[in-house]
C-alpha cells in the first residue's frame, strides 16, 4: 500500500529515531512511504494560536503537495498529525476559509480540495490497515516479559478522535499485546506531558512529567512507549532535571512505539535509532528479553 509521508521538523533532528524506526517498520510491513516533495513546517502549536488563517495556509500547502497517486497521508508526529487533520477539517467545514486558503496557495501555483487527503497516524495505519495477523506474522523477537506503559498523550486522540476512545485509548495497548509484551494498564495514558510548558514554567511542567513517570514506576513498567516527539523529549530529556527538582530517582527509558515494534520484528537496533535516547533502553532490553530467551 502506498502512503504519502510527512516527517515534519522534529523527525529530522531530535526525533530522528522516530523517523528511522517508522521507515524501517514500514518497509517490513510493506507500507510504501513516499515523502512529500518540498514539505514545510506544520507550524506546531504556535501558528494556530496566533492566526488561524495563516496557519491553515501554511499547513494546507503540504496537503496540496500530496500527489494524486494516493489520498492517504501519514504523519508520525502528533502535532503535525493534528495540524494537518485540523486544517483539512476546517477547510471542509468552512468553505469560505477554504477559498481564502486556496487563494494563498494559488500564489505558489497550488490548490487543495478539502477532504481529498485522509490524514493518518502511523499507529492507525499499522493497527487498522495492516492488522493483527500481518503484524504477528513478522514477530521474531516476542516482547514477552517486557512491561511496557503505552503513553498516548493528547494530540492523536484529542480533540479529533481517531476512532479510539479519547479518554482511555486502547489501540497501542492492543498492538503491544500482539507483540507479546506485558502491557501495563497505564492510568495516565492520555494525560498531558506539559508540552512547551518547560519553557514557560518549569515547576508546572516538571510536576506533569513527574506524574507520568511516577505512575509508570508504580506499575513497575520497564519503559514508556510514546508516539509524539514532544512527549518523548519531555519525559526523556527532562527526566534528570525532574529527578533533581523533586529528589526522585526515576530511570525509565522513553522510546517510540515504532522502535519497539522494530525490536519485535528483529530489526537491528541501530536502524531503529536505539541509543539516541538519554535514558538508555538497551540495558533493559538486554536484561528482560534475554532473560526470557534463556528461560
Amino acid at each position, binding site marked *: 500500500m502506498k502512503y504519502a509521508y510527512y516527517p515534519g521538523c522534529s523527525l529530522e533532528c531530535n526525533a530522528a529515531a522516530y523517523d528511522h524506526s517508522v521507515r524501517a517498520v514500514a518497509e517490513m510491513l510493506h507500507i510504501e512511504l513516499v515523502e512529500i516533495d518540498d514539505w514545510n513546517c506544520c507550524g506546531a502549536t504556535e501558528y494556530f494560536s496566533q492566526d488561524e488563517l495563516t496557519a491553515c495556509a501554511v499547513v494546507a500547502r503540504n496537503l496540496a503537495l500530496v500527489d494524486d497517486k494516493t489520498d492517504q497521508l501519514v504523519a508520525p508526529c502528533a502535532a503535525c498529525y493534528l495540524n494537518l487533520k485540523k486544517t483539512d477539517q476546517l477547510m471542509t467545514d468552512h468553505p469560505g476559509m477554504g477559498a481564502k486558503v486556496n487563494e494563498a496557495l494559488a500564489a505558489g501555483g497550488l490548490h487543495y480540495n478539502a477532504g481529498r487527503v485522509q490524514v493518518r497516524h502511523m499507529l492507525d495505519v499499522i493497527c487498522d490497515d495492516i492488522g493483527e495477523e500481518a503484524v504477528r506474522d513478522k514477530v521474531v523477537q516476542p516482547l514477552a516479559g517486557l512491561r511496557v506503559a503505552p503513553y498516548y498523550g493528547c494530540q492523536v486522540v484529542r480533540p479529533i478522535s481517531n476512532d479510539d*476512545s479519547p*479518554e482511555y485509548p*486502547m489501540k497501542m495497548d492492543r498492538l503491544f499485546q500482539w507483540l507479546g509484551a506485558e502491557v501495563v*494498564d497505564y*492510568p*495516565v495514558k492520555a494525560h498531558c506531558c506539559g508540552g512547551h510548558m518547560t519553557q514557560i514554567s518549569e515547576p508546572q511542567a516538571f510536576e506533569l512529567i513527574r506524574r507520568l513517570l511516577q505512575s509508570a514506576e508504580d506499575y513497575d513498567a520497564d519503559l514508556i512507549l510514546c508516539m509524539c516527539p514532544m512527549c518523548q523529549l519531555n519525559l526523556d530529556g527532562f527526566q534528570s532535571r525532574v529527578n533533581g527538582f523533586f529528589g526522585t530517582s526515576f530511570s525509565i527509558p522513553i522510546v517510540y512505539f515504532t522502535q519497539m515494534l522494530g525490536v519485535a520484528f528483529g530489526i537491528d537496533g541501530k536502524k531503529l535509532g536505539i541509543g539516541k535516547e538519554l535514558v538508555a533502553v538497551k540495558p533493559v532490553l538486554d536484561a528482560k528479553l534475554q532473560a526470557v530467551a534463556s528461560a
Partner: protein
Amino acid sequence: MAERVGIYVCHCGSNIAGIVDVEAVAKWAGAHLRDVVVAKDYKFMCSSLGQAMVEEDIKNENLTRVVVAACSPHLHEKTFRRACQNAGLNPYLFQMVNLREHCSWVHTDRAAATEKAKGLVSAATERVKLQKPLEPMFVDVTPATLVVGGGIAGLQAAIELADAGYPVYLVEREPSIGGHMAQFDKTFPTLDCSACILTPKMSDAGQHENITLLTYSELEEVSGSVGNFTVKIRKKARYVDYDKCTGCGICQEKCPRKVVDHDFEAGLGYRKAIYTPFPQAVPRIPVIDTANCTYFTRGKCQVCSKVCPTEAIDYEQQDEVIEVNVGNIVIATGWKLFNCESIPQYGYKRLANVFTNMEFERLCNAAGPTNGKIVMRDGKTEPESVAIIHCVGSRDAKFNPYCSGVCCMAALKFGHLVLEKTKAKVYSFYIDMRTPMKDYEEFYQRLLEEGMTFVRGKVAEVTDAARLPSEQGKLILQYEDTLLGKQKRLPVDMVVLMGAIEPQVDAKELGLRCGISCSMAGWYTERHPKLDPVATMTDGVFVAGACQGPKDIPASVAQGAAAAARIQAMITKGKVMIEPIVASIDEEVCSGCRICNNLCPYNAIEYDEEKGVSRIITALCKGCGTCVAACPANAITGAHFSNDQVFAEIEGALWDAMYGGNGQDQGEPAPEPEAAPA
C-alpha cells in the same frame, strides 16, 4: 349531481393562525374550489361550538362532503367523523387536513405556508368528492390477554386482569418472574424491603387460577389484530419436567458445578448449573444452564437426575412452541443497565473497587452474596469512604441524551444504606439532583441531614495513579466542583457508578413483531405522550413500565394497572370497531396468480382453490395497500384509497400547476410567478 362540500379551516389558537393566513385560505377555498358551498375559518374547530357549526351546516346547507383543515387526524379525526354522523352524514365522507403538524409547525415563511395550506385544502377537497360511504365493522374481543414481561409492571397488569376474571398468559424470558425489582434490597423513598412488597405479588401471579405462567419463554410471532391475535410462544427447554418437579431444591444443593451468576447476582455471587435465580423464585422449577452443566458439556455427571426424588430431570427435553389466542397484548419488557465499561476513564472492570449500581444493589441486599454487608471487592474489607457518581451514560451526548430519572433517588438510597450499615463517608457527584415525585425531595433533605456529602460536578476520571502519599492505594476521583469553580481530587475506597437505564437490546425486534415502534432512544412509542400513555399506534397492543421510558416502581405499577383497565373496558364491551378501510378483490378480474398472498404483512389474504382466486379476510386486513399496488391485473381496490381518489388528491395538491395558479374557476392567464425567496 354535484357534491356540496363544506370546508372548515381551524386557527388552533395561534398554532396554525400564527403562520398560516387561515382566513385567506378559507376565503380562497370558497371562491376558487369547485363544488364548495361553505368555507369558514374558526378559532377552535374541535370545541363543541366548532363541531355544532359543522353539524348545523350539514343540515341547513345539505352538505354531502366535509373537509376540516386543523391538526393531525390522530387527534381529532374521530371528533369530526362523529360530528358528521350526528348530522346524518356518513363519517367516511369527511376528510381531515393536517395544517398544524404538516404546515404551520414546520414552516416559518407566512406567505409560502399559506400557499401550501391552499394546496393541502384543495387536495382534500378533490379527494373527498370521490370518497364513498363506508360502514365500520365490529369483531368480538377474545377475553384472554397476553402480558410480555414478568417484572412489576407486567405483574400488575396480569393480576388486575386475572382478578377481574379474565384469562392471562404471562410470558417471562427468565426462569422466574419478578424482574429487576427482585434484585433490589430497599425501595426509595420509604425504604421498605423490595422483596417484602414484591413476593406476595409474585406468588399471587403464580397461584392465580386465571394466570397461565410461561416463564423461560419468549414471544416468537404475533398475527391477527385487535380482539383476535394469534401468538406463538417458545417455551425454552428447562430440562426439568414442569409437572413432575416439586421445587424441593435438592438438585441445586447437590449439583457440583458452581457458576458465576452474571444475571441475578450481577456477577458478584454464584449459582449452580441447575438453578432457580433466587430462593423466592416463582415458579420454583429450576432450569439447567446447558453452557455450564457438566453433563451437557462433557457428557458425564447426571447428579441432578440421580438425586431428584420425582424423576423430573429430562435431558432430552426440547423447546416447545405453543400457540394461544388473545384479544389484547401488554408489552412490559422493562430495561437493561448501561454497560459501564463504555466509559473506560471510570475504570469499571479495570479498577477492582469500582461497582455498578446493580452490583451495589446486590451488595446491600440481605439475601445477596455478602448477606447485605457493604464490603469491597475482596469480600471482607469495609470501605471508609464511598463515592457515588451520577449520570453514568445518562445526560451524556456520547451515550444517552436522556435523564434516567430514577438514579438520583437510588443514589440517595445507597447513601442512606452506607451511612446506616458502615462508618464510611459518602459522597454524591451529581450534575443536578432530580427528586420530583411525592416524598422524594424530603428524602433528599433527609440525606443532607444524615451527612451525605454532595458535590456538584461531573467526574473526569477515576484513577489509581496517586500523586500524594494520602492517595496511595485509593481510588482517586478527579472532578470539577462547579459550585466552587475548582478542579479537585478526592481519594476514596469505593466508587459506585449510577449506570443509565437503557432499552432492552432486542426492544426494536420485539416491537416489529408486535407492530409497534420505538423512539430514537429505543423506548416504545405510546399513542399520545400525555393523553394516551399506555396505548400504542397498533390497536390492542399496550405498553407498560420502563420499556416505554425510564421509570420508577410506582410509575411502572400505575402503567401496568392503566393498561389492564383499558383492556378490561374492551373485554367488557365485547366488541371492537374495525376501520372499514380494507382491500377487496374483484374475483372477475383476479387471475389467481397469488402474488399478493405472500406480500400481505398481516396474512389477510387467502386463496380459494376451487375458484382459483385470492380473497381478502377483512377482519385481518389493515388497509396498508401493499396488495393493491402489487396486483398485476389491477384486481384489488383499497377502500378509501382507490386510484381515482388518490389521483384526484394529487391533482388537487397541484392546483396552481393544473389550473394556472388562480384557482379552478378562473379562466384568466396565470400571473407572473413571484421571485422565489433566496
